[in-house]
């Protein structure tokens, strides 16, 4: 069994882990680093519950091997503290069971950074990547739009 000892930069901290070639980044961050915010909703790239950031862009961590993460800036939900989007999600009741929430927040946070002028169709394009089964998406829409508004005015 081929193992690799690699350096991963996660939430601004350097981590050294030993992984199998085929270990996904999701598996590594959850099992080896205890960062359980990213979730194994489908392990197939379909649901978005495993979404994290790689170099500021959203990434489904089940679609990435840990070994592909070397040299990248990786941020997980645990690396976000008191961001406008987290506050907006709380204020607008944009979650119920909470399982999809870290994925949505990571995706939304990246959207706010990369597309601060996002219109409805860009928001839809990005957020289609995540499934929420509890809400109707209307609260999520309100939360994202309010965070975008706030960003613009500040």
């Amino acid at each position: 069994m081929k193992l690799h000892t690699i350096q991963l930069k996660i939430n601004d901290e350097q981590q050294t882990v030993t992984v199998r070639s085929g270990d996904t980044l999701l598996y590594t961050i959850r099992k080896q680093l205890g960062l359980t915010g990213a979730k194994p909703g489908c392990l197939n790239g379909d649901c978005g519950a495993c979404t994290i950031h790689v170099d500021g862009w959203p990434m489904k961590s089940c679609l990435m091997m840990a070994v592909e993460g070397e040299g990248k800036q990786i941020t997980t939900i645990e690396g976000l503290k008191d961001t406008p989007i987290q506050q907006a999600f709380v204020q607008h009741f944009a979650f119920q069971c909470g399982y999809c929430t870290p994925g949505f927040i990571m995706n939304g946070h990246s959207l706010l950074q990369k597309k601060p002028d996002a219109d409805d169709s860009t928001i839809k394009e990005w957020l289609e990547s995540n499934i929420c089964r509890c809400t109707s998406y209307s609260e999520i829409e309100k939360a994202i739009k309010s965070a975008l508004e706030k960003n613009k005015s500040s």
Partner: protein
Amino acid sequence: MEDKGRERVMLPFSFDYERPKSFQEAVTRFQQADQSGKEPMYISGATEFLTLGRINQVYTEAAIDVKGIPEAKNIQFDQGYLVLGANLTLTELEEANVFPLLTSTSKQIADHTARGKITLGGNICGQIFYREAVLPLLLADSQMVMVGPEGVKVKPINEIFHERLLLQKGEFLIQVATDTRYLHAPFISIKRRQQWDTGYPLITIAALKIDRKVRVAISGLCPFPFRSNEMEDALNILEGSPKEKIQNALASIPSPILDDVEGSSEYRLFVLQNLLLDVYEALKFGERE
């Protein structure tokens, strides 16, 4: 759907993972692994590698990650051609937006987050048969730049892509070159799904108009993407109503037509007819200028 065994939490097989820094190194590594009987594979975006691997539809003992190869990440204009590296992610292509038809077609593939990992080369050369990113290239008669044991090869797409890219063992796609005059041709790209706005293609159609003729490329109708000269001839004829031209064009579609959980083959034909009407509305095939 052949039942090949259970789905896995992760890739069940053990393999060597390497990330060569040049395409020569990549090819050499491949040949070495091949000689050792490791059934090597090139991986680029690797999304299919992971998702098909966990349901036992992909196997290798040596994965050669070609993402580190500088030539495969280029976007540049060179002597009247737009050269795109095959390892560019679909999102990178969209953000650069140098080829609007490709941007438009790419934006409908999978979902936005996944497109940050899926590469141009991966989408074209992977096992999943939609390969929608190839449609604009088929329409623009792009040149496919491949490297392998026999060195660098450049071939026009209609010679080297027939249902799939006909790569030799040890070869991989490194770049795609498109004549810039196609980049600004009027175009349309529509993706229709079983329902609403997300999911696998039922039918994806891309079309452009150049030299007064409309070209059409289709994915999702058959288990491969295609462009058909006979279809285009039927559409571009000057006589007849659009509906008649479309009926004639349908006589030349390849087979088999897919019949699966996304839709029946009869329904696909119904959808295709309407899509061709949409192409007509946008590009007006078979009209005197």
